[in-house]
């Protein structure tokens, strides 16, 4: 029985067990591989997507739970050629090395700025602390988020 799933504004019908992780559905069934597997344990944030605007770890979320909700992935941020401001500031700050964490970082940051357009440094750190960048580009990611917040003014 196909399960409906609304991703980046497109309604999909997914033929998968409702217990399958949203991350696997996005990557393997819908070909949206921008969302990454880093741990499958909710510990690294590489798989972060927005569920009705809230950041969630898609590796820990069952397909059945995500159905009926609005899902946004990294692929859904840009409007055509026009990048989302957070993607822009990540580019400008070169806030990555291997960039494997980047999708999750950007999605977490987008969720933060949507809710709180002018976060303090402490608020940014608290919000982002569940996202791991093993390459250690945290200072640049912070700068990119601060820069994006400034543009909100």
């Amino acid at each position, binding site marked *: 029985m196909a399960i409906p799933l609304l991703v980046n504004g497109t309604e999909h019908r997914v033929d998968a067990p409702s217990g399958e992780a949203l991350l696997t559905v996005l990557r393997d069934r819908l070909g949206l591989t921008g969302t990454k597997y880093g741990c499958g344990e909710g510990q*690294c944030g590489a798989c972060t997507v927005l569920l009705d605007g809230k950041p969630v770890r898609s590796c820990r979320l069952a397909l059945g739970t995500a159905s009926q909700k609005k899902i946004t992935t990294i692929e859904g941020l840009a409007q055509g050629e026009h990048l989302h401001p957070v993607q822009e500031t990540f580019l400008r700050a070169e806030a990555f090395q*291997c960039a494997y964490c980047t999708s999750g970082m950007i999605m977490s940051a987008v969720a933060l700025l949507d809710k709180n357009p002018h976060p303090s440094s402490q608020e940014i750190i608290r919000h982002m602390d569940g996202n791991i960048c093993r390459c250690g580009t945290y200072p640049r990611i912070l700068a990119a988020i601060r820069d994006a917040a400034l543009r909100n003014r």
Partner: protein
Amino acid sequence: METIANSVFDSEEQQHAAIQRLSYAFELQRRDFLKALGGGVLVCLAVKNAVTQESGHTQHAASDEDLPNSIAAWLHVSEDGTVTVFTGKVEIGQNIRTSLSQQVAEELRVPLASVQLTMADTELTPFDMGTFGSRTTPIMGRQLRTVAMAARNLLIDMAAQQLHADRNTLVAADGKIRDPKSNHTISYGELTKGQQLTRVIGEDPPETAASDWHAAGASAPKVDARAFVTGQHKYTPDLVRPGMLYGKVLRPAAFHASLGSLDSSEAEKIAGVKVVRDGEFVGVVAPDEHTATKALQALRAKWNSPPQIGDSQLFEHLKSKSEPSSGEHNLHVTGDVQKAMAAAHKAITKSYTVAYIAHCPLEPRAAVAEWSGDKLTVWTGTQRPFGVQEELASAFRIPKETIRVIVPDTGAAYGGKHMGDAAVEAARLAKSAGKPVKLVWTREEEFTWAYFRPAGVIEVNAATGSDGKITAWEFHNYNSGPAGIGTPYDIPNQHIQFHPADSPLRQGSYRGLAATANHFVRESAMDELAHEAGVDPLEFRLRNLTDPRLRAVLEAAAKKLGWGKEKSSGSRGFGIAGGVEKGGYVATCAEVEISPSREVRITRVVEAFECGAIVNPGGLRNQIEGSIVQAIGGALFEAIRFDNGRILNPHFAQYRVPRFSDTPEIEVEMLDRKDLPSAGAGETPIVGLAPAVGNAIFAATGIRLRSLPMIPEGLPQAHPAEA
């Protein structure tokens, strides 16, 4: 499957030795793709011996006479003027796709955007030993500049003919050649149109001095950055092949366990599942990941595990199971340490330890394998594509010419992706499945079945005279490795020795190798000596140091921090450390805060770094900052816990890595020495942090921490003798 390597030093040496025995002369005409490139100009760089050139072990390289000439790199200028460069190096976040492109653009006088790099594809790119040891910038960078320069000269020759001009007056810029006399210009594309030229050149030093660099020497954004912020870049785990299945491997219950029995009947009942068994290797394939995981869980296996030691016995074990040094390169002696110790004004005798740590690249080991007939293609994230090709050849007993290994730009490695385990496993599953198979290790597999940075015991005895000069330095490293084991300080009597030991866990390379451990001990012990001698730690180092490059970074870091302006107190401490490794000079200052509840926070890190002429300042700064952040984990809290052949903390929830909240203010001072050749910089910036932080904690609390990690369970109470 790979056997347990005894030590990082031996394992790297063995790998190099094994690869060195082979011959890598290939005939260019066999390379069909050269024809596929179409018209244009192709320039190949022949080096005397690409193997030793790339090994980074110039001292103990096999004699090059036995080995044929090899092609190290090639570059093609097509009929529309686009430039394609082929190199066996891999991009793992160290940003060489950009910095190598910059250097080619520089020498060829073309815009950066017209340079394409084809990297790490055993069918398309020249043999390469691997991407490690900070060799890319000093060696591959130089080689690519040489080819690019030769290509430019060739194009100028062609232009001189066409324009009937004196070649020496022609100017190449922006992909065109101009005759200033007639003001005629001709583009590279116009010159290469209808041509089929191949040139093989030898090695010459590059022509353009760093002081005249334009494209190189300036920051350039990552060449394909947009693909990363939009999620479009395809890492190995993102690849899909037609008909592809998903694989999982059954892991033994413990290291060295053998398979007693296997009941796979339940797994086989699941629709679409195939169980693959080959000796001790057991795996499953299924049409999707979810089903593959279910099938794996349905396997019932009995394992026979031999008893094995745990981490509580580790350091004793390493010392008792160590060998006396084998060969000269593990031992360095000058003067008479014993005599000097006996005559010491002040002396220390201390023992330090270093735990195993995991690389934890965020992209786990992964591979997609596909057989078509006898030909095998594997996409995998590895630092050694040609090494993985060898591993596959020996695992399947097929000629390596039938194997193609392709490395997509990878989600980091840090020295952890030298081996081809995932590639071999995926290929084994694909062989039985008769379809392409993707295998992505889980995080727990990463933490368990990859290899670790070696643990070690390091003992140091040292003495100073009444003038605060070091008179004796004895340094024994058990197991962790010989990288960075020497001392840059001027000490007349030295005994420095590396003792390989039996490692209970599989161990291998890690960013910077043992230089992190050896610098931690040396620079902590330097601090201990300074304290004993009653001399300021910076002043003590400078008093014992003549190397001008190391002095320069120490002074630069100290100045930027404001060393000595504020005295350390119970709640705030300052520490300094320095070192030199792989041609890079580093000095790190750390400021730590100790809260009333005795929590330690690194609040500020200032690092000065010098690695000759800087190719991409932005990329270099990124590497230095990243090294500092990564180093925090190994310095403060990362340690692999194990017992009886099992890893006890194979999850991020139990193995703490640095996060946003651990990140201090970081200030980087890069010293650009345009008069010196460029050294690599992906590793050395990591070595200064741990000792600088340890020294800062001591300055604040009087507690000397002699184990990495230093505070896995928080700051210990002061030892009565030291309080």
